[in-house]
């Protein structure tokens, strides 16, 4: 039942948003925001201008505004400006909870450069507050909204914040520095002394953030990065996140190093030692980086071993990460992965179908000629269990495998042909047809059987586009085979039985046959 706004404004405790019929039926269930309406909330926000602020009430209104923004409600420029100005008034309140919501709101509203000035002095005051959380958050908000000029004004405070003994404050300043680096590199680079101090911090994440910022300021200087890596790999790294960063930078140094002799790689030893770290994210990062580098088989082996162990983890995320990495390795170095084949085969039945598909496609890359037939059998039962999206990935892997082992074309062609007969959408069927066409082009012996399979397919194909494409292809390839007449029946049937588009294709195909094949000329 709608309530009038005028009556409710007199009693803020009773204020209700104007009830709006909601489109969505499931909002009938209780929701604190049921019936919320932008206009009403904007009206409520006018209360922010009151000289006597009710912190609790204002917090509620801000939360409603944040809800609206979160739900995708758009505010006109005028509305946004009005709200922003109203919100700035809330700095009058000393309520900590409200202040925190004000910070959030300012970030959401992204005030324009001519509006920002209203809050900068309040934020700068908070940046020097005795309250740690005010300092930390005011820094984050300020750095989000200021320009280069203002940045130079507050630079001094940011440098102090970076080495603040409260880690939350330090991290806030460091992360803000990373964001500011994009637009103001010269300014942020001046903070390198403080940032270096942060990198030595005992607080785990301060080191992480400091390291990220330091690296970014120096990333174009190979020597500087190399020195950074050098000192840290010998020093104390205090968090798995920082360790991961160090692994990344180390691999960068190794890659860029002009030193190509594999024996002379001290940083490589560091990477290898990370394979034995206690944090799984570090092990994964190191293993992955090693597999991405140009290493010997001996250097690669321990990374593969560790990934193989992850394949049998109870955690889907670990299994996924491992199989994805091995999948990539298998592209260039399939032999390195063959030890994992048994584990990969058991992953084919993994509940997580992404993992299962990755396992299969890895096997398709590592499989050797003798295992192809067995793989094809296993894949057949696997395919019925997965969606089109995954099936396409498998089809493409099979195509690659066939190109690798052209002598095995028969069993793979049969597989592809059977797949065409199964249920499936357009993209899936197209992928199969494309694969057959590719194989016909690459493997001369496969041509006749491939064309026959395509003919059988168009007898029952629901996709006009595919039928036409195939007929066109037949017209080009059929006449050049040893016995073109085999295909005539299939094509002729299409002339009679199909829709106009397909019939037209069929007719022109027959014409091609007629033109190119002497025996058929009547």
């Amino acid at each position, binding site marked *: 039942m709608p309530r009038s706004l005028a009556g409710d404004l007199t009693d803020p405790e009773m204020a209700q948003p104007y009830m709006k019929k909601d489109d969505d039926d499931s909002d009938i269930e209780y929701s*604190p*925001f049921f019936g919320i309406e932008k206009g009403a909330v904007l009206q409520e926000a006018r209360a922010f201008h009151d000289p006597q602020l009710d912190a609790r009430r204002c*917090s509620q209104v801000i939360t409603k505004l944040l809800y609206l923004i979160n739900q995708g409600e758009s505010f006109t420029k005028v509305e946004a400006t009005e709200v922003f100005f109203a919100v700035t008034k809330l700095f009058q309140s000393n309520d900590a*909870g409200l202040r925190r919501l004000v910070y959030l709101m300012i970030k959401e509203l992204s005030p324009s450069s001519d509006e920002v000035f209203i809050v900068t002095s309040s934020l700068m005051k908070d940046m020097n507050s005795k309250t740690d*959380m005010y300092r930390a958050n005011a820094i984050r908000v300020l750095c989000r909204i200021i320009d280069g000029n203002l940045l130079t004004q507050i630079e001094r405070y940011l440098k102090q914040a970076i080495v603040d003994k409260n880690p939350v404050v330090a991290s806030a300043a460091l992360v803000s520095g990373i964001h500011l680096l994009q637009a103001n590199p010269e300014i942020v680079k001046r903070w390198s002394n403080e940032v270096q101090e942060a990198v030595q911090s005992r607080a785990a994440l301060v080191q992480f953030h400091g390291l990220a910022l330091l690296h970014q300021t120096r990333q174009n200087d190979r020597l500087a990065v190399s020195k950074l890596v050098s000192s840290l790999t010998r020093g104390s790294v205090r968090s798995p996140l920082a360790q991961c960063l160090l692994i990344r*930078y180390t691999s960068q140094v190794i890659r860029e190093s002009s030193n190509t002799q594999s024996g002379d790689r001290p940083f490589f030893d560091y990477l290898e030692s990370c394979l034995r770290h206690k944090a799984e994210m570090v092990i994964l990062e190191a293993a992955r980086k090693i597999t991405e580098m140009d290493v010997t088989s001996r250097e690669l082996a321990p990374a593969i071993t560790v990934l193989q162990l992850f394949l049998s983890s109870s955690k889907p995320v670990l299994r996924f990460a491992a199989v*994805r990495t091995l999948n990539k390795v298998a592209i260039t170095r399939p032999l390195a992965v063959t030890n994992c084949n048994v584990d990969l085969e058991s992953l084919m039945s993994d509940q*997580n179908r992404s993992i299962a598909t990755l396992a299969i496609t890895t096997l398709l890359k590592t499989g050797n000629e003798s295992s192809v037939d067995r793989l094809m059998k296993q894949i057949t039962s696997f395919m019925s269990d997965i969606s089109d999206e995954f099936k396409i990935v498998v089809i493409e892997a099979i195509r690659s495998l066939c190109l690798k082992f052209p002598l095995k074309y028969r069993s793979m062609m049969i597989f592809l042909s059977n797949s065409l007969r199964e249920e499936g959408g357009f993209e899936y069927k197209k992928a199969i047809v494309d694969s057959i066409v590719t194989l016909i082009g690459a493997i001369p012996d496969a041509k006749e059987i491939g064309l026959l399979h395509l003919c059988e397919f168009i007898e029952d194909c629901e996709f006009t586009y595919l039928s036409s494409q195939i007929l066109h292809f037949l017209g080009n390839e059929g006449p050049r085979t040893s016995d073109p007449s085999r295909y005539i029946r299939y094509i002729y049937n299409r002339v009679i039985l199909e829709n106009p588009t397909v019939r037209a294709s069929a007719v022109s195909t027959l014409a091609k046959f007629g033109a190119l094949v002497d025996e058929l000329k009547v």
Partner: protein
Amino acid sequence: VPSFTVESCPSVKNILLLDSEGKRVAVKYFSDDWPNNASRLTFEKSIFTKTLKTNARSEAEITLLDGYIIVYKFVQDLHFFVTAGDDENELIIANVLQGFADSVGLLLRGDVEKRTALENLDLILLCIDEIIDGGIILETDANTIAGKVATNAADGSVPFSEQTISQALATAREHFARSLLK
């Protein structure tokens, strides 16, 4: 062939908290890959649909979509998602998801369901704000995250390390009204 891309800091593309029908409870995007609300809603619908039939309750699950990795978990009628680029370290993202789900659990005092989340939307939004800043990971430890939220909500003058989580949350509860309709 290794490409000479410069190594970068781990980054998160979005954090989503959806209900059991895929509707938003609280979301935050940190990337221009989704420039407007329509594209975001499309993404949310895709990821929700793709993961709906999976069992992501006991262990965090993971999937690939449109070239992104998404680590996710379901708790009661809430679906938690964290998205990153497909070249990111999956375990780092899983860590972020864990921090997100567990800190929400702490802040809602174990009552992890949609209605409670909406009644405490302010805490959820503050929570997300304390985990990621502009795509960069700020914190992944649930106790620390919840502590940062609770301290803010309570009396910010006490350094957060000196407050136990339950103390801070109790004060926070006094401060914020449970029901926003009051």
